[in-house]
């Protein structure tokens, strides 16, 4: 059945695929996750604020991002970010931003909207009395958030946050639209060069499956390990 296939192409290209492609994919995933969770948490705190000046813009931002297709945002930011960068540094013209950094910024901004909604639910899951207890002891808003509310919210939401990260990991393959070479992109290059499309796509699918499946197993383990004792 596999007579017409040449799976040797995998062996020949595997080093390149992981060294170039997977490194890009994992670096992008890790950076977008970190940035997205930090920015998303801040957005969540803003959305839950009683001040309209904070909750209105945060709400608008999250709703905008969640209403747009990711591919569109990747493209849009790829062309927009150099202009914004130029405006920030006051250059008056677009600055050079590589595909990698453009992707990091895009994914951070985009995923932050989703992480925000997760963290918002997490913060809301913490009883009001916990905040009261913090305030009653004389702790400030930031101390109460940082020491009492967020650590618990984070733990409660850990499985959902990591599930979202697994989705992010898969979504990073969309960077092909700005000609960045991630794991899938590297495989596609090899596939086209050697005309081994089925073999390469199958291999890529297996790798994505193994990594995502292992990660979701890890999530379950973490959940048991870090659950708050009640």
């Amino acid at each position, binding site marked *: 059945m596999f007579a017409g296939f040449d799976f040797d192409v995998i062996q020949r290209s595997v080093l390149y695929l992981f060294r170039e492609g997977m490194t890009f994919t994992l670096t992008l995933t890790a950076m977008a996750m970190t940035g997205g969770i930090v920015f998303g948490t801040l957005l969540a705190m803003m959305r839950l604020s009683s001040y309209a000046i904070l909750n209105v813009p945060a709400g608008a931002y999250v709703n905008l991002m969640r209403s747009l297709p990711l591919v569109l945002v990747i493209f849009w930011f790829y062309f927009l970010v150099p202009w914004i960068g130029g405006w920030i540094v006051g250059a008056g013209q677009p600055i050079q931003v590589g595909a990698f950094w453009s992707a990091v910024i895009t994914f951070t901004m985009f995923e932050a909207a989703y992480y925000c909604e997760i963290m918002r639910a997490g913060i809301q899951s913490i009883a009001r009395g916990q905040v*009261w*207890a913090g305030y009653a*002891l004389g702790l400030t808003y930031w101390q109460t958030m940082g020491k009492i509310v967020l650590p618990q919210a984070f*733990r409660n939401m850990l499985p959902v946050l990591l599930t979202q990260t697994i989705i992010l990991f898969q979504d990073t393959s969309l960077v092909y639209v700005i000609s960045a070479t991630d794991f899938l992109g590297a495989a596609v290059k090899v596939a086209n060069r050697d005309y081994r499309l089925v073999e390469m796509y199958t291999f890529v699918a297996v790798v994505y499956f193994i990594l995502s499946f292992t990660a979701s197993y890890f999530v379950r383990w973490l959940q048991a390990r870090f659950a708050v004792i009640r």
Partner: protein
Amino acid sequence: MIEFKNVSKWYDTFQVLKNCNTKVDKGEVVVVCGPSGSGKSTLIKCVNGLEPFQQGEIIVNGESVSANATNLNRLRSKIGMVFQSFELFPHMKVTDNINLAQIKVLGRSVEEATTKSMTLLKRVGLEEHAHKFPGQLSGGQQQRVAIARGLAMDPIAMLFDEPTSALDPEMINEVLDVMTGLAKEGMTMMVVTHEMGFAKRVAHRVIFMDYGEIVEDATTEDFFGKPRSERAVQFLSKILHH
């Protein structure tokens, strides 16, 4: 020590506190009672600004709680508060629960804070539970830790918001005993509770609230011996003969 002057509070159009006037002197133990929904928990939460109020003034130790010039965090750190549902921080060990504000708010070193926490845990009879998480303790034990957490800040007064209402009956006394001990030492206390036995034994004064109003504000003897209002008489007959 704590003085309420014409305090009124609304939730939208619904008035939860109506012109409340009273005061708690230094070293005094005042029990606040009344039917549920009468505003007693709200009243006590106004003392440290957990609940804002729209009219009137509360003066704590010479400072107005609602004034812009008041450093609310500093004022709160001087008033201990114990909640109905304990509100220990479940992700921290017992000692860390008591240490946290000592370190963050009072600027004590970890060693100083831990020494203080252990002394207080010993006092509430829980030193062997220092390294457990709140979830591993019974309700009564958790509430005693919560009292220790409040005391660790060397407060000038303690507020208790129905401290025994969430407890199983057999655990109520261990908490009330700690509170009685505190009262005997001269701690200024404001206690929202339905424990009329505790009120009779420990309180100097009783405030009775109904529909957001302070209906009676009398010495403990007078309140239980000759309540003046019909509402207080009714409340007492319900709560004492059930």
